[in-house]
């Protein structure tokens, strides 16, 4: 794959993911700003409801893909030493993967105990 093709793919991926992240992100932010769950039971009930659980499980990889393309662009623009850039990208990759898996297992566990 040429550099140009990979750049265009990333550019397109960034715009497609932006639409879902924007819409669902806005829903999440307004839910927690306007009607934050007052108890553990209420939070569990909200997360375990099928549409919210599905929306969240989709949100995790789509958000992380969007964030990955964005932070990768930033690192490529500002971190010039190649070893340092590779180290930073590896660290971000691990943190993103760990964050995504950790959040997803919490959702799946809540669904399983319903």
């Amino acid at each position, binding site marked *: 794959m040429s550099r140009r093709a990979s750049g265009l793919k990333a550019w397109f991926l960034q*715009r497609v993911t*932006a*639409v879902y992240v*924007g819409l669902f*992100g*806005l829903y999440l*932010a307004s839910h927690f*700003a306007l009607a934050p769950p007052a*108890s*553990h039971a209420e*939070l*569990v009930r909200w*997360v375990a409801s099928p549409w919210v659980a599905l929306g969240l499980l989709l949100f995790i990889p789509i958000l*992380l893909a969007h*964030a990955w393309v*964005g*932070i990768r662009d*930033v690192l490529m623009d500002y971190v010039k030493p190649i070893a340092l850039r590779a180290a930073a990208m590896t660290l*971000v990759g691990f*943190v*993103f993967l*760990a*964050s*995504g898996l*950790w*959040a997803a*297992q*919490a*959702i799946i*566990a*809540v669904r399983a105990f319903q």
Partner: protein
Amino acid sequence: MTKHRPVFLELRRIHLPVGGVVSILHRVSGVLMVLAVPVFAWLFALALGSTAGFETASAFLAHPLVRLTLLLLVWALLHHLLAGVRYLLIDLGLGVDRPSARRSAWTALAAALAVTLMVAGGMLL
């Protein structure tokens, strides 16, 4: 690629147009939210895991410094979202001419700040 391209980085002499300000803040806000990703994943799993975890997460989020950081993230989300919608519209060929682009840049910049101030007011009430 040429090795010695001209670089002009005298920050005090660069007059960035408003579109440039919105653009760099789109990056800054994105980086801020990236830094928040692991914290939110941890808080979410903690609050969801048990009643005690929910209480710990609530207490953490009630701390004044955390509230201030949340407000910064609210601005980051709003600015990133509004600037992002602006870029999507420009990619579709809407509002590309300079007066429209300037106007939408000012709108995104101001609206994100205005709603952040409203949220700040709501937090104090």
